[in-house]
C-alpha cells in the first residue's frame, strides 16, 4: 500500500452559522479511483472548494481541519496554487472556448512556443505558437483517453460528450498532475460516452494518477471506484471498499435519514380526490441543462406532488415547460382545457402559477419594491389592483400596498416595509415574495421549483409550512420540484422521479430508501407505480 497523495483530515466548515461540513475525512492514494457520493447539497462542492483554495472559502471565514498533500501539511490559498501542486479539476460547466480548436483549448495559456526573429527582440510574448508540438501533445492526451477525434477541429458544435473529454484531456496534459478531481463528469454524457469515459478513467488511474470522482450515478461507482466515501448533510456516513459495496447499500446511505413526516391535518374536501387537475402528455422541453425528453404525468386535484431526481435530468424543465418559459412540445390539459404551450400568459390566466427556481434571474425584480414584485403578475394577467381612468388602467398604489402589507404579515416577511427593494432581502424572504406573487394570482395549481435552495434552515421550514398551509387550507394543488428528496418526502402525497429526461417512476413518500436511490440513479428498470 503506497502513501496517500491527499488527505483531508477533520474538515469542518460553516457558512453563516450553517454547519455544512462536519469532521470530514477523505484520503486518496496514487492510482486509486476514489468515489465521493452524495445527494445535492451533501457538501461535496464545499469540500472541493476547500481543496482548491477557492476565494469563497476564505471570504466566508475559512475552515478548520488539515490538508496533507504528498504527506506534507499544506495550506492552499488559491486555485493556481492547487494547480501548481498538481491537483487538476474537471469542471462541471465547460471551461472551453468555442471559437478555439481542441488543441488550443487543451493548451489554453500553457501553449508551447518557439522563438522567432521578432521574439528574440521583443521578448517572450512574441514567440510563435508551436502548433505542431501542441497538436502532438493534444493527440497524446486524447489518445490516453481513447478519444479518436481530429485534434484541430473547432470546439464549437461538438457534442457535449466530446467537450467533457477535452476538459479532461486538458487536465491530464498538465505534466505534473497527480490528483484529478472529476465533478459529476458523466452527468451530461450519453451511455456510450459514459462507457468510454469510465474506461479512460481506469486507464488514467493505472498510470499512477489519483482520482477523486464525484458522482451520484451509483452503477458507475460500482464499475470504477476502488473506494467509496458517502456524504450526507456534511457528514461522512459511510466508507466502503468496492467489494463491500452495492448499489442498494449506497443508495440507502445516500438518501436515508429520519423522515420528519409532517402530520397533516384533515384536508378540506375540494371535489373528488380522484379527479385529475392536470394531465401532461409527451411533454418535451428544450431547457438547456434540464432537458425534458418525454414525460407524461397526471396530477390529482388537491394533492401535493413532488418531482425529484438528480440535477441535470430534467425535473426542473417540466414546470418551466408547462408554464411556457422554454420551448416545449406535447400536450398539457388543465381542468379539461388544453393549455397553449410556449405562452406564459395563457398558462397564468387559466389558473396556474409558478415559483421559479431561478429566484434572482426570473423570480424577482431585484431593483424594485416588494409590493411591486408581489402585485405585478396579478395585475398584468388578471387586471387586479387597477382602475380605469380616461381609458388608461392605473395601478392603485393604496390597494397594492394594502395587499402587500397583508401578505407581508401573513407570510411573516422580514422587511422594513412594502417599499423596500428586494435585492436587500435575505434568500428566505425573497423566496416568500416569489410565493406571495404566485398566490396573489389565487391559482388552482401552483408549481414550486427548488423552494428551499439557498436559504437557511429556519426559513426552509417556514417555506415548507407555508406550502402545506396553502394546500390544506386553501385546497391549492401544489407541484414541488426539489433536489432535496427529504424535503419532498416530508410533505408530498406522491413523488415522481425523473431520470434522463423521462419519468422513471412514481413513489409514495414512505417508500423504501433503496427504491428512491435506485430510481434516482437510473438503476431501476421497472418503476413501481403507485396510484
Amino acid at each position: 500500500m503506497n502513501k496517500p497523495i491527499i488527505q483531508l483530515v477533520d474538515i469542518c466548515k460553516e457558512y453563516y452559522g450553517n454547519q455544512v461540513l462536519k469532521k470530514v475525512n477523505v484520503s486518496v492514494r496514487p492510482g486509486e479511483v476514489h468515489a465521493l457520493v452524495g445527494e445535492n447539497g451533501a457538501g461535496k462542492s464545499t469540500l472541493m472548494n476547500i481543496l482548491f483554495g477557492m476565494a469563497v472559502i476564505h471570504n466566508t471565514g475559512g475552515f478548520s481541519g488539515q490538508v496533507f498533500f504528498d504527506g506534507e501539511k499544506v495550506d492552499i490559498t488559491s486555485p493556481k496554487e492547487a494547480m501548481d501542486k498538481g491537483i487538476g479539476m474537471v469542471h462541471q460547466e465547460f471551461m472551453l472556448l468555442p471559437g478555439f480548436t481542441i488543441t488550443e483549448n487543451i493548451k489554453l495559456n500553457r501553449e508551447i512556443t518557439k522563438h522567432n526573429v521578432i521574439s528574440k527582440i521583443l521578448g517572450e510574448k512574441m514567440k510563435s505558437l508551436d502548433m505542431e508540438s501542441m497538436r502532438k501533445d493534444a493527440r497524446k492526451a486524447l489518445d490516453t483517453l481513447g478519444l479518436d477525434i481530429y485534434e484541430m477541429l473547432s470546439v464549437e458544435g461538438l457534442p457535449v460528450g466530446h467537450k467533457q473529454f477535452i476538459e479532461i484531456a486538458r487536465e491530464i496534459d498538465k505534466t505534473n498532475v497527480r490528483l484529478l478531481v472529476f465533478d459529476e463528469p458523466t452527468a451530461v454524457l450519453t451511455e456510450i460516452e459514459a462507457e468510454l469515459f469510465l474506461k479512460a478513467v481506469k486507464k488514467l488511474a493505472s498510470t499512477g494518477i489519483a482520482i477523486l470522482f464525484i458522482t451520484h450515478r451509483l452503477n458507475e461507482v460500482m464499475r470504477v471506484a476502488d473506494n467509496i466515501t458517502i456524504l450526507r448533510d456534511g457528514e461522512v456516513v459511510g466508507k466502503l471498499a468496492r467489494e463491500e459495496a452495492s448499489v442498494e447499500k449506497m443508495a440507502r446511505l445516500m438518501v436515508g435519514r429520519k423522515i420528519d413526516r409532517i402530520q397533516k391535518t384533515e384536508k378540506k374536501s375540494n371535489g373528488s380526490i380522484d379527479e385529475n387537475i392536470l394531465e401532461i402528455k409527451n411533454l418535451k422541453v428544450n431547457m438547456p441543462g434540464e432537458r425534458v425528453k418525454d414525460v407524461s404525468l397526471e396530477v390529482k386535484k388537491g394533492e401535493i406532488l413532488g418531482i425529484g431526481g438528480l440535477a441535470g435530468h430534467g425535473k426542473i424543465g417540466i414546470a418551466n415547460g408547462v408554464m411556457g418559459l422554454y420551448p416545449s412540445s406535447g400536450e398539457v390539459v388543465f381542468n379539461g382545457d388544453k393549455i397553449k404551450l410556449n405562452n406564459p400568459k395563457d398558462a397564468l390566466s387559466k389558473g396556474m402559477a409558478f415559483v421559479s427556481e431561478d429566484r434572482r434571474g426570473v423570480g424577482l425584480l431585484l431593483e424594485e419594491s416588494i409590493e411591486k414584485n408581489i402585485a405585478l403578475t396579478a395585475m398584468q394577467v388578471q387586471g387586479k389592483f387597477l382602475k380605469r381612468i380616461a381609458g388608461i388602467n392605473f395601478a392603485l398604489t393604496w390597494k397594492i400596498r394594502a395587499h402587500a402589507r397583508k401578505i407581508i404579515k401573513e407570510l411573516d416577511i422580514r422587511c422594513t416595509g412594502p417599499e423596500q427593494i428586494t435585492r436587500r432581502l435575505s434568500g428566505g424572504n425573497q423566496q416568500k415574495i416569489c410565493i406571495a406573487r404566485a398566490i396573489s394570482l389565487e391559482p388552482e395549481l401552483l408549481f414550486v421549483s427548488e423552494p428551499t435552495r439557498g436559504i437557511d434552515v429556519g426559513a426552509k421550514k417556514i417555506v415548507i409550512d407555508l406550502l402545506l398551509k396553502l394546500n390544506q387550507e386553501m385546497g391549492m394543488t401544489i407541484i414541488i420540484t426539489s433536489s432535496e428528496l427529504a424535503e419532498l418526502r416530508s410533505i408530498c402525497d406522491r413523488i415522481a422521479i425523473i431520470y434522463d429526461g423521462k419519468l422513471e417512476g412514481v413513489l409514495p413518500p414512505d417508500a423504501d430508501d433503496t427504491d428512491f436511490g435506485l430510481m434516482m440513479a437510473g438503476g431501476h428498470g421497472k418503476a413501481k407505480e403507485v396510484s
Partner: protein
Amino acid sequence: MKNAEIKTQQKRMQFMPDIKKGLIRNIVPVVFAVLCIIGACIAQARPLFLLSSVTIRMARNLLLVFSLIIPVVTGLGLNFGIVLGAMAAQIALVAVTHWEITGISGFIVTALLSVPLSIFFGWLTGRILNRAKGNEMITSMMLGFFANGLYQLLFLFVLGGIIPMVNKTIMLPSGIGIKNTVALRGLKYALDNVIKIEYDDLIIPIFTFIVIAVMALAIKFLLQTKLGQELRCVGQDMNIAEASGIDVDKMRITAVILSTILAAWGQLIHLQNIGILQTYGSHEQVGLFAVASILIGGATVTKATIGQAILGTFLFHSLFIISPMAGQKLVGEPQVGEYFRAFVAYGVIGLSLGLHAWQKQQAARNKFEE
C-alpha cells in the same frame, strides 16, 4: 458518435454546397455589391476612373480599417477610440513639418515619433475602456469628443503659446496656434513615390500596398503568437481567460495600444497621400468610416478578419464613389444626389448592422432548437 462521422459532418458544415446558405451568411457584402453594381450602371461612370479612385482610396484607408481588427478579436468591440491614434499621427506630422524633415526619412521619423504618443494614448483609452466593460463603443465615441477638446487646446493655445515654435509657416499670424491647413509638402507621396505604377489615369502606389501587406502579415503573425492567443482567449470569454491565469485587463489595454499605433500609422499613410493636413478636421472622420468599412465587409463586433477588412474597404469606398454619381443621374439634381448618397450610405450601414444582429438572433434560435 463515431469519429469518422464527426469529421464528415464537420466537412459538410464547412463545405455546405448550398449556395443560398452561403449567400445568407454573407448577406451584407452581397447586398452592398449588388447596390454598387446597380449604382455603377446608373452612373455610367468611366471604369478606369472608378478603378483608380477605388485603388487610391484603398491605399489610403486600409491600414486604418486594419487597426480595428485587434480590439474586435479581443472582445472590445469596434474601437472608435482610433481617433486618438489619428491625433497622435497628426501631432507627429506637425512636429516633423515644423522641423522640415522631408521625403521617406521624414515619413519614417513621423512613424517612429507617433509610436510613443499612441502607446500613451492607447494606454489611457484602454484603462478607461476597462472601467466601462460592456459599454466600450459608446465610451470610446465620447472619448473621441473629449480628446478633441484637448487636441484643440494643444494646437490652438499651447503650441506657440507655451511651447515656442520657430517655424512660422505653419503658425497663425499671431504666432499662437497652428493654421487650420498645413501643407505636408515634404511628406506628400513620401511612401507612394518609392515605387508606383502609372497607366493613363490609373496610379497604383505599389510600395504603399507592400507596406499595408506587411502590416496585414504582421497582424496575422501577431495573432499567431502567444500574445495573440491570449488576446483571442480574452475576446472569447473574459471569465475563462481569467480562470486560466490570463491578466484580462492588461490584455485589453495591450489590444487598444496596438490598435492605436496601427491607427496612427494608418492616418500617416492616409495623409501622405492627401498631402494636406486639416489640422482640426482630418481625424474626425477616421472612426466612423473605418468602422463602417469593416462592418460592411462582414465583420461583427465580435469577429473580424483581414479579408473582411479588405472587402469592406473596397465595397464601402466603391459605394461612396458611385452613389453621388448615381444619385445625380437618377434624380437629375446635384444636391439631391448628395442627400441620396448620405441616405443610402448610412442606411446601408444601419441595415448591415441590423442584418448582423438579426442573423445572430436567428443563429441563437437555431442552436436552441437543435
